[in-house]
């Protein structure tokens, strides 16, 4: 079943359609998939996320979430995690994670006590059990990112949009986060759209990769990652992995060199 489908999406920051940052983009995302989106700077990756989340409206084209056609207000339909953790510095870890619940006005949002218990369970699982009452400035970069991810999960949406969530972390911490996310993935039962610049990261984590075009005559390219799950870091040296990486690099390189 397709959880998200984009059909012929076009968006331009200015009035003229010629300078559109996204033009005629179509893609399909199935429930439970991990999909990476790669593209050079300025190819409209973040704009695409803002369109899906409902922060922007497309000039033309169609966005369907859960098969339903979205007209205007789809804010609050999908969970969105930006590159910066954006934890509120005056709120504790627990209170930060409660934010999505506070804004949820649907009757299904549950009681506060239940949500808190749920957050505490997840914090413990994320290795953050002791930090429930800490403030964000008392945490390391990796920990803050995990809290931000937990906050994204608490929103309770099936589709998560992660905009370079590990982009600001150092290489070591990033590796740690990959390991952590791979461990988590099988129990998560979520669908993730993941923006990244890091090809290895994209191959290691995803089921499919979309390469956004830079020139508008090129379409979106789709790459299947046929590596078995559960994934682990040793796969970096798998010949198939190396082949995929080479292929990706070639496509990216060819694009930017033209």
């Amino acid at each position, binding site marked *: 079943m397709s959880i998200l489908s984009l059909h012929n999406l076009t968006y331009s920051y200015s009035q003229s359609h010629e300078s559109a940052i996204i033009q005629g983009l179509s893609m399909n995302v199935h429930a439970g998939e991990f999909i990476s989106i790669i593209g050079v700077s300025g190819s409209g990756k973040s704009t695409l996320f803002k369109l899906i989340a*409902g922060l922007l409206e497309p000039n033309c084209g169609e966005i369907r979430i859960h098969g339903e056609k979205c007209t205007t207000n789809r804010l609050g339909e999908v969970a969105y995690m*930006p590159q910066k953790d954006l934890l*509120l510095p*005056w709120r504790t870890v627990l209170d930060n994670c409660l934010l999505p619940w506070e804004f949820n006005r649907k009757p299904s949002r549950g009681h506060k006590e239940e949500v808190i218990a749920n957050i505490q369970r997840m914090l413990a699982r994320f290795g953050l059990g002791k930090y429930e009452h800490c403030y964000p*400035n008392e945490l390391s970069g990796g920990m803050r990112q995990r809290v931000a991810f937990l906050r994204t999960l608490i929103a309770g949406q099936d589709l998560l949009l992660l905009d370079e969530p590990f982009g600001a972390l150092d290489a070591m911490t990033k590796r740690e986060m990959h390991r952590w996310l791979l461990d988590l993935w099988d129990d998560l039962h979520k669908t993730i759209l993941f923006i990244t610049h890091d090809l290895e990261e994209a191959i290691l984590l995803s089921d499919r990769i979309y390469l956004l075009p830079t020139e508008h005559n090129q379409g979106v390219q789709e790459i299947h990652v046929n590596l078995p799950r559960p994934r682990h870091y040793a796969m970096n040296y798998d010949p198939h992995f190396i082949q995929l990486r080479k292929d990706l690099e070639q496509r990216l390189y060819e694009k930017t060199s033209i």
Partner: protein
Amino acid sequence: MRRPLFRQWAHDYGWFALLLLILLVSWEAVVAIGWVPSFIIPAPTSIIRSLIEDSPLLFGQHLIATLEEVSLGFLLSVIVGVMLAVSMHILRPIEKALYPFLIISQTIPLIALSPIFIMWFGYSIWSKVAVVFLTAFFPIVVSTYDGLKKGDRDYTELLLTMGANRWDIFRTIEIPMALPSFFSGLKLSIVYCVVGATIGEWLGGTKGLGYFSRRMASNMHTDAMFASILLLSLLGISLFMMIVIMEKQILKRRGSTK
């Protein structure tokens, strides 16, 4: 425990205290030698003597009167200032309409306006409160308004994707982010309040430290006049410190906002 505390104090205020001491001693010496007649600049010791001699009158009547005017004026400034700032922030037409008036209100020379205040409010406390209000509300409006505008776009977008409405964003992002700026405004304003009250009393009054200082000046009681000025300055300092303590208490447990 005593020693480190003293050291800390010496580290923070040592140089200031030393310079103050040097100034006071040379001042005293200049008057004692007779270079300057004491009715032009009284010696520090005679100011203190006069402060003690007149203390029942100074503290029992005039300080209380000034404090009343300052408190009322400050309270009014905070209430009206915050209301103006919030409405300007929420409704753009209000901002467009009011901002020029705010500036105009600050360009009017208060002294020129005072006869009107006396006509409106008589010699009652309200003519002084009006002067206090006119000098003190401006920094509150500007600092609160600027603080509310600081609400970060990234945070706002994140909250929108969680389904937050305008009021949610105002209460969870904009108010906490405006607090540091708001407190800067309060600190400026409280100092202006004391100045405003003094001006108000000069223009027409029957009690208050400003009135007392003016009466003493016209009677050539320079030492008593300086005593009341000293008290006014101390009043300003203590009120300022109270705001600082309040600010520290409220902003204590939060990390850097930036």
